[in-house]
């Protein structure tokens, strides 16, 4: 079977550095550490990227995908707006603030980015079924991508997810299996299914295809830098579920520096969690190196991973870059969703409420420099977590069609 992963050359263990051939493996045989893709990029120029499509595939020379990836049946996500948030900046006292709005992706969350890379890996390995364990957004992204790519899908979620996410995962076809347990239990189930004959030739995008899948988050870093004019932001606030996105954004910035595509300037990475699932934030504040798992209880269901595998790496990065990890309450999350919506016209899902809420808290506690250029991520559309704002999902007035009736409300 001849594989084409573009510039990717091998898999490498993030813990011990052991190398493996490109295959559907995700854990190091020596130490169980997570595997990631290793590359030989060669010489990549800004013009190579700028001449590419308005999607993540402009960065194909930095991703484990073939050079002709843009011609294959794929959702072609990415190149989402980087919104200059003057109103929100003024409200928070931040001089230069941008919102990277990933609700603009095909299935309205950043998950389209990571799934697109996993689809190419599944194609390479001849897999016939795409699968995942999901807190909601990933299930929709996977089933949509499977439909476009002509693959089967069978996705697993914890029972009790928001209806919008369930509807979205169902509409694209395939099987949607709700497991009576937490997301962490769904994850465990999928890890077991992979080792079973029932899971043979299945591509679990966030398990046995994870080393490829995870690379998709680097495109957030690349796009932000390119959209700022080939410049790194000084501060960036990133939500933490497993911690993978945050670590890959750091990796993406470092790659851009190493390739000479941006000037080597320091940047501070801030992680954001919901108080009701804040194991990384707790570990950061206590000065610990290890993350103690928790049982999540928060409206931010897309971030409700009680045992985040990348937690320790997030701690390293926050400390190394001079950032921090903070958390906000469910009430603060809802307030932040409303603040972003009313100042910038962006309707964020709860994960976006977490980042904007943490952004506000970081300014108020003096951890964030209000004079420094700051980017905050919104990773999903508010329509996916309507439950969080349903109390306000009512008209401000219900009147008969008369001018007098309206006058009475003013």
């Amino acid at each position, binding site marked *: 079977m001849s594989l084409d992963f573009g510039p990717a050359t091998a898999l490498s263990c993030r*813990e011990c550095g052991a190398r493996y051939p490109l295959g559907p*493996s*995700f*854990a*190091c*045989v*020596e*130490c*169980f*550490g*997570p595997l990631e893709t290793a590359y030989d990029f060669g010489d990549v120029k800004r013009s190579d990227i700028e001449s590419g499509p308005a999607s993540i595939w402009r960065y194909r020379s930095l991703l484990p995908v073939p050079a002709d990836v843009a011609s294959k049946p794929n959702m072609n996500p990415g190149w989402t707006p980087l919104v200059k948030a003057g109103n929100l900046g003024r409200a928070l006292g931040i001089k230069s603030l941008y919102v990277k709005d990933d609700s603009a992706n095909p299935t309205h969350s950043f*998950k389209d980015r990571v799934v697109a890379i996993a689809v190419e890996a599944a194609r390479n390995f001849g897999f016939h079924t795409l699968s*995942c*364990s*999901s*807190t909601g*957004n*990933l299930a929709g992204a996977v089933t949509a991508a499977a439909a476009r790519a002509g693959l089967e899908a069978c996705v697993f979620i914890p029972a009790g997810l928001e209806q919008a996410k369930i509807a979205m995962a169902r509409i694209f076809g395939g099987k949607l299996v709700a497991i009576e347990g937490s*997301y*962490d*239990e769904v*994850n*465990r189930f999928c*890890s*077991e299914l*992979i*080792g*079973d004959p029932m899971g043979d030739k299945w591509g679990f*995008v*966030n*398990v046995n295809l*994870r080393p490829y899948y*995870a690379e998709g988050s680097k495109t957030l870093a690349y796009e932000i830098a390119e959209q700022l004019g080939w410049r790194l932001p000084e501060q960036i606030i990133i939500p933490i*579920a*497993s*911690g*993978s996105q945050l670590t890959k954004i750091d990796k993406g910035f470092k790659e851009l520096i190493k390739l000479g595509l941006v000037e080597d300037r320091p940047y501070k990475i801030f992680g954001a969690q919901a108080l009701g699932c804040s194991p990384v934030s707790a570990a950061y504040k206590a000065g610990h190196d*290890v993350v*103690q*798992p928790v*049982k999540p209880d928060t409206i931010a269901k897309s971030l409700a*991973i009680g*045992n*985040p*595998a*990348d937690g*320790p790496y997030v701690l390293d990065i926050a400390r190394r870059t001079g950032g921090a990890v903070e958390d906000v309450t469910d009430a603060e999350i809802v307030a932040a969703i409303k603040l972003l919506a009313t100042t910038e016209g962006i309707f964020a899902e709860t994960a976006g409420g977490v980042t904007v809420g943490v952004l506000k808290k970081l300014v108020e506690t003096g951890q964030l420099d209000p004079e420094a250029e700051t980017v905050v991520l919104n990773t999903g559309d508010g329509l996916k977590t309507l439950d969080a704002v349903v109390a306000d999902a009512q008209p401000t007035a219900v009147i008969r069609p008369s001018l007098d009736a309206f006058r009475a409300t003013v």
Partner: protein
Amino acid sequence: MSVTVRIPTILRTYTGGNAEVTGEGATLRDVLAKLDSDYPGIGGRILDESGKIRRFVNVYVGEEDVRFAQGLDTPAPEGTQISIIPAVAGG
């Protein structure tokens, strides 16, 4: 106590391809020690040099992740199923 131990794919080279083996021990620590004596070398994949469970391994006694229980001192009652699973998360 006699228990069953579910072996993840990447450790099945130690158990001759078996996905499930029998184990013996009063606590998880004992069960892993006996497992290593039955399948030499497997212990070193699950525990690091200082004898702690490796960071990216999750071990369950029954349904409980032992990090929520007593870690290696978690009791292993007769007939329990112990699962060793590589830690992945995210989605």
